[in-house]
């Protein structure tokens, strides 16, 4: 067993923050788990920023460049990582919990016959073994898990660790991807990028969410304005999504996404238990609701009883004036 591999995901020439968060955490674990700390950057036409990962603790960075590694489909990545695993025998493989990362980790674990602990919000060392902590049942319980044998594959929930630089440098090694026909069987024939500037819910460190209290679809603009001032993503309750006011991928809750941002601002959301289980692991929850008996006030860190149409635009102006 030799060291830790962190799969560093690239999007539009930048590393995803969760990859840098994961790498920073791996740097702490290296002494117990054993080094070296290696990163993999796999993509298509990826620019020469692989060496930047040295600043986050990577001692060695493998770079794999191939068209098939830039489609958002995971199977070609699995071929590349499985081969590296054969050559390097990593004891742990850590992957950021994006949509692509989830697919990579799942298929890789199956390919290698290895264990996968998903949705880790903390990683620690138990002697030289990795230990992962994840919330279960909507955050009601925290489960600690380990592995029987290796490699120990973990998916890391975004916003679980701080991305911090240590000022090191890395040796960059180019690898030639060997991608099987099976991994090329599914083909992307068209791509429709999401609106530029829109931040994905799961990775966002701040989320501003709107519910039925917004009253009408056009009123989501109020929430979007605050979100844009804060650099936040926009979430929605199921009531707002079911009414057709906001798209499905933005729904937070039991049947939507589970999020753990540093800050969650709920506007016109009652705080039903099905909503709560999707956001109660947020660090700080702020609620704006005109009903003082709304359940959300029972678990918000700060609650303001009032009309969101008064409060949210004023708050947006205050945030903007601080920045500008």
């Amino acid at each position: 067993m030799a060291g830790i591999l962190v799969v560093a995901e690239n999007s539009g020439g930048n590393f995803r923050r969760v990859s840098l968060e994961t790498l920073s955490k791996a740097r702490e674990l290296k002494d117990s788990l054993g080094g070296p700390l290696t990163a993999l950057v796999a993509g298509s036409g990826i620019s020469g920023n692989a060496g930047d990962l040295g600043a986050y603790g990577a001692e060695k960075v493998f770079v794999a460049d191939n068209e098939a590694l830039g489609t958002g489909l995971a199977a070609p990545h699995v071929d590349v990582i499985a081969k590296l695993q054969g050559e390097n025998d990593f004891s742990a493989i850590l992957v950021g919990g994006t949509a692509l990362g989830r697919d990579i980790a799942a298929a890789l674990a199956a390919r290698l016959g290895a264990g996968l602990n998903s949705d880790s919000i903390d990683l620690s060392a138990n002697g030289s073994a990795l230990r992962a902590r994840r919330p279960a049942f909507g955050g009601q319980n925290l489960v600690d898990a380990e592995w029987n044998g290796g490699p120990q594959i973990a998916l890391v929930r975004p916003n679980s660790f701080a991305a911090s630089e240590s000022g090191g440098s890395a040796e960059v090694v180019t690898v030639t991807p060997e991608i099987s026909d099976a991994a090329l069987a599914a083909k992307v024939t068209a791509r429709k990028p999401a609106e530029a500037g829109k931040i994905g819910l799961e990775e966002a460190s701040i989320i501003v969410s709107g519910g039925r209290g917004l009253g009408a679809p056009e009123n989501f603009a109020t929430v979007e304005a605050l979100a844009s001032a804060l650099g936040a993503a926009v979430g929605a309750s199921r009531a707002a999504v079911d009414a057709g006011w906001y798209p499905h991928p933005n729904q937070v809750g039991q049947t939507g996404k589970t999020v753990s941002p540093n800050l969650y601002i709920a506007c016109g959301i009652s705080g039903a238990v099905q909503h709560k289980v999707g956001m109660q692991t947020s660090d700080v929850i702020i609620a704006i609701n005109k009903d003082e008996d709304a359940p959300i006030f029972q678990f918000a860190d700060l609650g303001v009883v009032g009309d969101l149409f008064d409060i949210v635009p004023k708050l947006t102006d205050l945030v903007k004036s601080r920045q500008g």
Partner: protein
Amino acid sequence: MKIAVCVKEVPDTTAEKRIDPSTFRLVRDEGDRMLNEFDKYAVEEAVRLKEAGTADEVILVSLGPEKAVESLRQGLAMGADRLVLVSDAAAAGSDYLGTARALAKAIEETGAELVLLGSESTDARSGVLAATLGEVSGRTWVTSANSLAVNGGSITVERQSDDGIDTVEAPLPAVVSVTKAINEPRYPSLKGIMGAKKKPQDVKSLGDIGLGAGDVGEAGAKTKVVGIETPPARTAGQVVKDEGNGAQVIFDYLVEKKLI
């Protein structure tokens, strides 16, 4: 063409959960259990493909306790033709890989060319089974389908990726997980509910599908739970009434907590 749909019985995640402190497993005989909400979208999509004449049989496939039949019957009431439930004491404590191995074997026996799954289960919330199953069964797999079309020997999927929506073409046989955007699941009709009881519901042991302990269950699991903690529930913080200063109160709080 036959379609297999992987369905799972889940506990009501909004109810208090109890975990057996000695086995670290969920106590499954308590409280409400239901068909995983996300799986209804997969069942609906399969039933629509049957109604459109693209598929001729829809088979629900599951791994879980025998009692799960009651929850899973809802899929039959929605229009699926039959249920195959793998249930075995030795399958308890399966990890993703074990679950996928058991489902793959059961699916193989059905002869299904297309396998549909929900995007996540509301208890595990991992969303990893489609990829695991695809890899284990050697089928092409595509996750997070917002739409699905079958054209002869291949499928076209619009999939939700991290960066947008991509159109993906893949050959059959295939494994596809679907998102909530794909359709609006129907409520079973009274006739559907009555008819569901009479549809075939086969419970199979691991031996029946040719698997032994070591492939699945706790014995075969590559991950192990070593501890469980129940963190204190969130409590109410400060609640203030807006008297024209509500925005300022929030702003000051954000500054104080260094959130902006």
